[in-house]
């Protein structure tokens, strides 16, 4: 199988080029007239150019062999990573609004036959969400206290939380509090547990939507 591949990939093109060059040389010899636009291949120049180009690209082999590490060998990491929607800033029953507007629409359609759905009324329902705030403590020391704004032009979409902390390997007590209901409200979710990590290991604090809880993975 691979013999056929090698044949297809390299030997056939090389044979093709060699025959083409040979024919071109023969043709130019036969003509003997003015110089042809396509001169026969200068094989010795080709060999020399190949070597020069090889030397020119050779540094890339060396330059792609030098190792690099962004992290220290003895580092471990604790990541806080999840996506969560904060609660709505103002309570607004969007479904109820749609229902009411629908009823009005049907009623007026019946009476006047010239009615329009008022989208602006629906738009009045505020959709903005609270930011999600995360507090994280490790061995009693505060690592993180940060609010994550909701995304979207109307600030009505989820907040995305991502932080990375390099930690000493070993066992640590991790406490986390998650606020999604706005300032001054108590934490909506909390976590208090121990996490053990070895060098190079990554542990992740995340929010599991199914379980509705903060977890350490």
């Amino acid at each position: 199988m691979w013999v056929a591949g090698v044949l297809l990939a390299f030997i056939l093109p090389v044979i093709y080029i060699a025959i083409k060059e040979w024919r071109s040389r023969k043709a130019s010899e036969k003509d003997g007239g003015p110089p042809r636009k396509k001169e026969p291949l200068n094989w010795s120049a080709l060999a020399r150019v190949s070597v020069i180009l090889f030397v020119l690209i050779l540094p890339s082999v060396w330059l792609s062999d030098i190792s690099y590490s962004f992290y220290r060998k003895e580092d471990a990491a604790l990541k806080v990573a999840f996506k969560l929607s904060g609660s709505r800033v103002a309570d607004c029953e969007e479904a109820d609004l749609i229902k009411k507007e629908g009823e009005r629409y049907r009623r007026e359609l019946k009476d006047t036959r010239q009615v329009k759905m008022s989208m602006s009324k629906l738009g009045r329902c505020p959709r903005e969400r609270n930011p999600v705030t995360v507090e994280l403590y490790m061995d009693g020391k505060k690592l993180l206290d940060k609010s994550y704004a909701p995304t979207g032009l109307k600030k009505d979409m989820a907040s995305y939380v991502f932080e990375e902390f390099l930690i000493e390997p070993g066992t640590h007590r991790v406490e986390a509090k998650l606020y999604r209901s706005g300032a001054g409200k108590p934490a909506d979710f909390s976590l208090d547990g121990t996490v053990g990590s070895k060098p190079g290991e990554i542990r992740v604090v995340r929010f599991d939507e199914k379980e509705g809880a903060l977890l350490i993975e």
Partner: protein
Amino acid sequence: MGEKREFSRAGFAERAWLAIEGPVNGIVSSEYNPFYYLGAISIFFLWIILVTGVYLFLFYDISARGAYLSVQSLTVTQWYLGGVMRSFHRYASDGLIITMLLHAFRCFITGRYRHWRWLAWVSGAAMAWVIWIGGIFGYWMVWDERGKLIATLSARMLESIPIFGLPLSLNFARAGNLTDQLFYIVLFIHFSTAFFLFILIMLHITRITKAVINPPRVVAYGMILALLALSFMKPAISGSPADLKRLSEAVPFDWLFMFIFPFLNWVSGRALWGFIVAATLIFAVVPWLGRARRKPPAKVTLENCTGCELCMEDCPYQAITMRKRTDGMPYPLEAVVVDKRCASCGLCVGACDYKAINLPDLPEESVKDDIRRLVAELKDKGEGRKVMVFACAKGPWIDGIKDGKGGLNGYDWARVVALPCIGMLQPSMLSMALDKDIDGVFIASCAHGDCHFRRGNDWLSGRLAGFRPPVVKKSLDRSRIGLQYLSAVEGDAFIKELTAFREGLKARS
């Protein structure tokens, strides 16, 4: 008329660079010197990257689980073709960076980036961005430990730009977060860079007449052979598969593409962006920094212009356009010079047989006056073979060019007429010099394939060989004309060749 043009010697850095290139001419001849085709070689590397990339794409599994396995399978089980294609793709990308940097450096060191070349320089800066971005995303696609580290670091940088609301790093936080969509996006970005590059190449060469976009056949084959040798010597392989539960350990890094990331160890992503943007801007405005005084552009003498278009065809920077006749003369067209694009090289003067275009600081008549004066001086020198030299000011730096008087110390039998580019040498100037008392004309052009103004030496060879108008008269004895291609650092070779030429003349008499 203002002051007559004075020529200046190539700077130290330029001469040092030319001294490096010179020996390569000795090995492969200037016709195939890769340093003269760095731009074309870069484009050829791009073609190789495109072709091999399409092949690799056929086997690439665009998914979080399959990406690594598909690349690894192609590399291991199909080493004879897929593996080699991958190595070609990889080394051609590295080669592209090397030749691109050399090309930029060479243009800078030889002063080929100012004035009429600014668009090529600025578009070159944009191309460098696209090439680096394409390469970095290419490494993501392998999704091995190196790919993971590069993805992590580049995501960190992207997140530091305020316009990216979602943290990209969230995708790599845990295996469950990694989606196939991300690989589709990465593949799209990687592919689209090729599209942008070809658009930028068009912009890069848009003001260049007959741009060299393909290297000579020998060089192209040489590139393939060199890549093939590298591919077998050290095939491109993947590292261990990306493990999102562990921090990336030390991985072999492609420093040609990833040199920027280690700075993240010391500065924030935002600071690094600031540095990159500042460096790019400084690079892009280089053509306007410390701007050298520009020579006055060529001027058309409309009453002599026949609208033959030869000047337009020979102009290397598309600085001459033709428009409908405005003076009522019985010719359909007239030449117009776009001053901002004019390099004042005199190539158009060499192409015009009707004295219709001139350099204000070096008019055709003043060159011809110099020829007459120097021919008369040589005639007075009595016995011995006498040689008139036409020298490109960008070629060997010799006495006649230095003082502008045309004398050559120690060689009383020769006189030198310097031209800004040897392409300015008109057939009528040659005829004038080959006066009955002058035994030969020696033309010292700049190195073949390395005309400072582009193509001047090619156009002259064409005129001498009789296939590029205005052609040199058939009646001129070609054995009395010598042509040598020499760079600015080959002054000694110039004297040697000139003496040998004169000796040859003597032998024939």
